[in-house]
């Protein structure tokens, strides 16, 4: 049996990947909105995002809205594919049962 992608196989990072996968491929989400959807502390979220960014699964774009800096996050093509592979792998481990969740 294949190993599950260790970069995604952690509670916080799986939830982050799942949330970012819920928006369209060419869209990104601001850090505060992502934080609100995950209910994680800013520090913890940043730590995990950095790991995902290092693995090129998440693209981080820093921009300004007026004078306030805003950070936008989105899945890279690689990240989106890795998330889909992870979910496929996870379901395969569980005997292919249950097909809901990502759609």
């Amino acid at each position, binding site marked *: 049996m294949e190993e*599950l992608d260790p970069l995604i*196989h*952690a*509670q*916080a*990072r*799986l*939830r982050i990947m*799942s*949330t970012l996968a*819920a*928006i*369209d491929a*060419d*869209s*990104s*989400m*601001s850090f*505060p*909105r*992502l934080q*609100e*959807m*995950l209910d*994680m502390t800013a520090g*913890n979220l940043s*730590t*995990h995002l950095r790991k995902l960014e290092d693995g090129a699964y998440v693209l981080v774009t820093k921009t300004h809205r007026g004078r306030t800096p805003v950070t*936008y996050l*989105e899945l890279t093509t690689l990240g989106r594919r890795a998330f889909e592979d992870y*979910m496929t792998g*996870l*379901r395969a*481990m*569980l005997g292919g049962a*249950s097909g*809901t*969740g*990502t759609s």
Partner: protein
Amino acid sequence: MEPTDGSDALDPAAMLALQERQASRVDDIFTRPTIAIVYIWGVAWTVGFLALWSASDENPWFTTPPAVAGWLFGILMVGGIVSSSIIGSRVSRGIQGAQQVQGTMYGIAWAIGCTAAAVFGGALFAAGMAPALAAIFYPAIYSLVVGLLYLAGGAVWRDRLMYGMGIWIIVVGMAAPFFGSPGNALIMAIAGGGGFLVYATFLEATRRRRAHRSAA
């Protein structure tokens, strides 16, 4: 369970459950406001058009003074527009890209459609449209605008149910004028407002079923 920074993994079944819970939570964040908007319009149309219908002597149970009915209807419509545009604009807050552009353009389409209907009505008034005719014209033109926007939304998001709702609103809106005034208001209240309430209830039931499944 110990508080954790989320770096650990659980067994596969628990991880799948965790992902499903999060997916359902995100889904809720996006769908709940939409359902609220449909409920708001369901109540606004049902109460507003019932009040207009009750301003005549057609209602065997009670009569609303015409001025009260007119004001109530106006307040409900304006309240519906204000609340749904606030709720609608908050859904895609913090999201950038094609998805957000699509949502914004769709929101603006509502404003354009409703304004155009009001301007058209104004022009007809200026051309001598009698109040009795206006009572038939306005609900019909708004139903057409709302119905077409539902069709557009259904097409954009490939949502068959929304598309079907668009067809229903147009059918109701175009059938109501044949009942004359104030009969058309009763049709609008029951089939139009009632239609929105049924649609909202169905969406809410679907959402709950999905949430329940992922929590199990």
